[in-house]
């Protein structure tokens, strides 16, 4: 990976393509977990790599490429949220039983809806992930799906490692509660 980054820094399109192929799914998954629209997620993913290409000659720590790339992505998502351009989607909430005041919440940046799935468990896990607050969800996606270290996540999100740990811990508690039916079993195949 170091070699690819160094080669891309000299202007090699082939090396940059290899970097893109290696990191696109991680970046896209992260952005998609923060921004509702698939089209917007794709657009932000492209912008991430465009900015990375333009800033690549200035990157000194070649080993930090992945975390650096995530930082670009996180900043783009944050700017999108701040500007209000992120499309507003709506979640309908209603009281169980008598719905006196059904209320629909639509946060500026919330998780993407699940893609079509065939497996109920995967549905439930994705739904549980979707219900996490955005900042916890970001840490979980980066850590569990992409394998970033706590330090890399902290750098990407501009927070302290302790804050990342705290978000991961709270997210884990919330996921455990939402997936209680699936985790309170003795089946250690899970």
């Amino acid at each position, binding site marked *: 990976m170091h070699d690819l980054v160094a080669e891309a820094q000299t202007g090699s399109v082939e090396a940059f393509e290899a970097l893109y192929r290696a990191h696109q799914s991680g970046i896209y998954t992260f952005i998609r977990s923060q921004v509702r629209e698939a089209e917007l997620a794709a657009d932000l993913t492209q912008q991430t790599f465009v900015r990375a290409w333009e800033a690549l000659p200035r990157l000194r720590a070649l080993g930090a490429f992945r975390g650096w790339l995530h930082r670009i992505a996180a900043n783009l998502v944050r700017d999108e949220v701040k500007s209000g351009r992120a*499309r507003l989607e709506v979640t*309908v909430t209603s*009281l169980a039983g*008598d*719905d006196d005041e059904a209320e629909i919440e*639509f946060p500026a940046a919330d998780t993407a809806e699940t893609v079509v799935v065939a497996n109920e468990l995967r549905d439930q896990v994705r739904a549980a992930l979707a219900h996490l607050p955005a900042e916890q969800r970001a840490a979980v996606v980066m850590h569990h799906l992409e394998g970033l270290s706590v330090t890399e996540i902290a750098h990407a999100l501009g927070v302290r490692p302790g804050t990342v740990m705290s978000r991961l811990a709270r997210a884990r508690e919330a996921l455990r509660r939402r997936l209680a039916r699936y985790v309170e079993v003795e089946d250690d195949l899970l």
Partner: protein
Amino acid sequence: MRKARLLLLFLLLSAAAARAEDPAWKAVWRSEEAPARVSLSGRVRTKATLEGKPREATAEVYVSHGKLRLDYQAGARHWSLLDNGQNLIRLQPDQKRARVLRRPQLAFDRALAERNYVARRTRTDTVAGRPVDVIEIAPRGHGNPVWRLWVDRASSFVLKREQYNVDGRLTTATEYLAVDFSARPAAQLFETPADYTREPEQVRGERLGLEALVARAGFPVRRPRYLPPGYVFLSGSFRPEAREPRAEARARLRGSPSGPAATLRYTDGLRILSIVQRPAQLPRGNTARRGRAPENPLEVVDRGDEKVLRRRAGDRVIVVVGDLTQDELVRVANGVE
């Protein structure tokens, strides 16, 4: 020209570095995170001015790693507030009732707050026998402090705080009279007692796009064309028509508002501005408490912590709530067309 570019770059980097390293802001954010790190028990006195009327209460406080419990006493009244990180729960011990209040999951941008406000350490002091640093937070470039925080040196926990509104009036103040950081409050303190009656909680349902929302709402949801400087979009919510005729009738009997309403919320990083829109025809159950139907073009209420402004604009009624001057409130409301 090259020198000018280098100078500009240097100034931008310095500004960015100064913001990131601002010790007063760092202390503020540490104090925001302190409740997640500490356990304590204590006693506070809290005061608030609501619509011109002063309110005061004392409360026993329990904090345990992000969870909070307050057992209030004001005269003969007792009530409790639980915050377990997911929900706010109001307990009424006399009736053994628990009401789950919405706890919005809103994401506030610290960089936005630092852009719009300046934090300053002013002096040291003592609260509940503990040394504290006093930090003032004021709008950047103009205005009197809006918050004063007395931050415990050892734990970064806020032991006293004062909040002032845009007109410079003190609106809320809370002070710890005693605090014990060695306390380990039991987990049961942050749970609703099993013998309490719980009101139903909200559950999530389907999701809609904005166009579908507007189609369901039956009225156009407009964004404001004017916002006070520094405010950006934060979140929104929509209340549809009650689905069942019985629920609608109950709402009318209670005098609760029924019928659709859409809310957009904006923030400058620390304060919130809410803009509620609904169709102009008032629901039948919406009785005026003081015998006056709200038909006037502009109505204003100064509640202390915030002001409320209502106006009718064509086919919609707009209600704006925020800690703004009356002029700014009017400008925002007039910009929602």
